[in-house]
């Protein structure tokens, strides 16, 4: 039979299976192939904290959602159009995320009595008609996989592990993409294991051929390349973008990069990534704990390195005292928080934005720290570079906030031209004449960076209050008052050194949606949809949270209503209300998941239609 091809602007697919089924890998491969085909895209890995949760259970389900298209893609998709479910539990957990009428592709082997029982089904949803509104494509992927490998005499365990490639092959056929990128990846990943290369490749192609030849699928889809700006692209996750940004920042600062870090989900990938870059002179140190991670970085900064520590919320809690030390000794330091669900251990693998107030205020004493937040995976590169620039210029620790959604999520990234990235190199003090450790630059109020090894500049720094200029220990009331003000003023003056805030949409109107961090894509989609309906709504997304940009108040006052969506109970909104006295309204959701743009659209309607304010 001749199979039809339909053209689509955008599609959202969700791959779901056991946490040991390789769903993250499957999703990543589909993502890379789609990126290389020129689609714009956004991804959402969603996996449990357990590495290999008991098979077939609801809590062991691992999912990967990808939204790709020929149009601008800002979010991983509110709902998926296609659900690939490797077992009954994966179906049960993810069905509510499937659009009405969306396609379900299942591995029937994952629906035996045991699977059904573990998933809490009393009857088989594939046969009891409960899924009548969805087209279901059924294949015994487990059996088809083992048939494809029958002559290879591989252990069942290995055969079983390749079945995700069968599903991937089917999806490649269905969305008209080539298997080549994945075949190349398999070759390089398992280069010393020819058996595994052969098995995975064969199963991938078997999946593709199965979809091509059987009559289960009679339509395939075409999603054309998006019209992205000209340039060279790669797909990048937020965590990789941070790692790359750090290497570039160190190089542009002409400093060695030192990372002190302690493994923690979802930040560890930055440590993994940076530990590979030895030829760039990067020094990575896996410390004994979070405190040693940051204090070793402070030691390295004292010695003249671009020093960084990466972590997530619970780690920041442990580093708190040391951040205060960095404030006191006025040394440059980058603290990167890939936020996750809290409090305490919370939801290690889920996303949240609830560490903003911790970043702004979570220290003893008056300890001002600049805070920057990235808005998309690729924006993590720009944000960490900017954080480094500020830290070096103002001699201060800087906190960069990302989150699990940005850190693990990915999008196409147009590579910057290295030559266009500005030089941010600091000037170490060399002249021994009239040196005082706490003399300040008139404009920035930064003290000078004098590093050990420089003759004639021997001096002592520390956590005790400093005398203005000399840096000697000093407990006098007026001096303390002055130093507290100086440290605050220094951070405030960063506002003179950053671009003004700008609005997406009109500068004046009925409603301004103000966001920060990973909510960017969902807010942008929602605001664009509403603007297309000629609603008076604009979007402002904050990268600089401390200090805030100088024109922010002015912008806020130009709108009748201000809406602040956050994945917390309202943290930025507290700051905006306190500083600008605006009657901002919050939209808050704390489910370990990003916003859907439809949720924001509903709230926009509610405000504009005056139902509730």
């Amino acid at each position, binding site marked *: 039979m001749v199979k039809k091809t339909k053209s689509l602007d955008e599609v959202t697919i969700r791959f779901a299976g056991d946490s040991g089924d390789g769903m993250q890998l499957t999703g990543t491969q589909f993502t*890379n192939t789609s*990126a*290389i085909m*020129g689609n714009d895209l956004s991804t959402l890995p969603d996996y449990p904290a357990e590495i290999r949760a008991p098979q077939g259970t609801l809590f062991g389900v691992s999912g990967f959602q990808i939204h790709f298209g020929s149009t601008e893609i800002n979010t991983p998709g509110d709902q998926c159009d296609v659900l690939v479910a490797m077992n009954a539990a994966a179906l049960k957990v993810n069905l509510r995320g499937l659009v009405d009428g969306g396609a379900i592709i299942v591995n029937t082997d994952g629906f035996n009595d045991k699977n059904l029982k573990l998933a809490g089904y009393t009857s088989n949803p594939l046969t009891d008609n409960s899924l009548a509104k969805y087209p279901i494509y059924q294949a015994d992927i487990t059996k088809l996989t083992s048939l494809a490998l029958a002559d290879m005499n591989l252990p069942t365990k290995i055969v079983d592990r390749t079945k995700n490639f069968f599903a991937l092959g089917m999806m490649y056929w269905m969305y008209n993409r080539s298997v080549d990128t994945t075949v190349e990846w398999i070759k390089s990943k398992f280069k010393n294991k020819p058996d595994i290369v052969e098995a995975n490749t064969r199963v991938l192609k078997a999946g593709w051929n199965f979809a091509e030849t059987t009559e289960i699928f009679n339509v395939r889809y075409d999603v054309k*390349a998006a019209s992205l*700006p*000209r*340039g*060279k*692209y*790669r*797909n990048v996750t937020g965590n990789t973008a941070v790692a*790359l940004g750090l290497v*570039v920042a160190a*190089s542009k*600062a*002409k*400093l*060695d990069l*030192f990372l*002190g870090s302690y493994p923690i989900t979802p930040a560890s990938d930055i440590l993994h990534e940076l530990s590979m*870059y*030895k*030829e*760039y*002179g990067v*020094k990575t*140190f896996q*410390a*004994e704990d979070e405190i*040693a991670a940051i*204090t070793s*970085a*402070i*030691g*390295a900064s004292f*010695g*003249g*390195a671009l*020093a960084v520590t990466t972590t997530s919320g619970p780690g920041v809690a442990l580093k708190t*005292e*040391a951040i205060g030390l960095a404030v006191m000794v006025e040394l440059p330091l980058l603290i990167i928080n890939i936020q996750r669900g809290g409090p305490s251990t919370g939801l290690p693998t889920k996303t949240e934005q609830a560490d903003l107030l911790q970043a702004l205020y979570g220290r003893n004493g008056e300890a001002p720290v600049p805070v920057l937040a990235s808005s998309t995976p690729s924006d993590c590169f720009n944000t960490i570079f900017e954080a480094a620039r500020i830290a070096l210029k103002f001699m201060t620790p800087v906190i960069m906030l990302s989150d699990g959604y940005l850190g693990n999520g990915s999008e196409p990234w147009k*590579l*910057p031209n*290295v030559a266009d990235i500005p030089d941010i*190199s600091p000037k*170490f003090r060399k002249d021994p004449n009239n040196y005082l450790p706490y003399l300040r630059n008139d404009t920035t109020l930064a003290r000078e960076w004098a*590093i*050990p*090894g*420089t*003759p*004639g*500049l*021997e*001096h*002592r*720094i*520390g*956590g005790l209050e400093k005398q203005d200029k000399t840096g000697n220990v000093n407990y006098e009331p007026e001096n303390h008052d002055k130093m507290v003000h100086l440290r605050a003023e220094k951070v405030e003056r960063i506002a003179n050194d950053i671009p003004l805030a700008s609005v997406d949409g009109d500068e004046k109107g009925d409603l301004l949606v103000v966001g920060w961090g990973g909510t960017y894509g969902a807010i942008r989609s929602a605001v664009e949809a509403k603007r297309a309906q000629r609603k008076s709504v604009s979007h402002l997304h904050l990268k600089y949270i401390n200090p805030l940009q100088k024109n922010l108040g002015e912008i806020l006052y130009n709108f009748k209503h201000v809406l602040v969506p956050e994945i917390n109970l309202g943290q930025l909104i507290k700051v905006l209300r306190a500083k600008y006295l605006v009657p901002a309204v919050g939209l808050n959701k704390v489910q370990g998941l990003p916003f859907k743009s439809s949720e924001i659209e509903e709230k926009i309607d509610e405000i504009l239609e005056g139902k509730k304010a």
Partner: protein
Amino acid sequence: MSTLVEEVVSKSEPPATKYTTKDFQSDQDVRWCPGCGDYSILAQVQRIMPDLNIKRENTVFVSGIGCSSRFPYYMDTYGFHSIHGRATAIASGLKMARPDLSVWVVTGDGDGLSIGGNHMIHLIRRNIDVNVMLFNNQIYGLTKGQYSPTSEFGKVTKSTPYGSIDYPFNPVSLALGASGTFVARTMDRDPKHLQQIVKRAAEHKGTSFVEIYQNCNVFNDGAFFMFTEKESKDENVLYLEHDKPLIFGKERDKGIHLDGFRPTVVSLKDGKHSIGDLIVHNENDSTLAFILANMTYNASLPRPVGIFLSIDRPTYESQMTLQIKNAVEKKGKGDLEKLLGSGDTWTIQ
């Protein structure tokens, strides 16, 4: 070292002219209590610094919190008086970033073994080339007299009115247990010995750990008098000297004999034992070091001081530097264009 750093810092070569003790005295008033053992330690360290032939600007003293941690203010070198317990971690980062520097940690029994115990053992096991001087006064001085992790069992202090029920750490055993490569003990009231041991510690490549018995004359006066005062010292202290038999006593008439793995005191005058029966100290023998360290809280044995162990193992920072050097040799110096464009890329025309 980055190019910017290289532009400002001195090469790590000996100073052109030899320093004097005075060159290491800073302009800050020393603020320890009159009579504190810290004064002697400071004086001895300042005295030996010129002999180390290291440029003053290449020397950094890092400390945490506590009486001993004021030390860096009084040395006219670079210094960092940091936060409680973290000096060892700060020094680790500094030494990794700048292997050219001579890095010292000054800490106490509370700072180094209680709040900073974790960083201490990890510094030692990594063998980062940092010189640790742990001033042990068996009490919390700065917070005015609570018991410390080295206070003796049953000690009555402000926070233990019924006596301490904590069993004390033996710092030397702890350092050996953490796979230390240089572990020693000395005393504030034995200036010559202190100078000699600290000098050896400075020369050691790798972490050197020196426990220094230090008298807190305000909150724990006389804690070590048995080992430091003329009347009692000879009978109670065993000086460890490499390649020499373990002899002690006012008349040098007693020695340490090994009965199985158990050290015992034997008399050299009773006609039953001679020098040949005594342990000959070997600072390169880690098994012996453990046995000698274990004598510490045994009341029937003299207290050993000196170098328990001194062995070679590659330092952490030298291996870190080597990995970077090898990677550059193998892959060429990192190129940013290549880095950003790594993995799968595509071009939109």
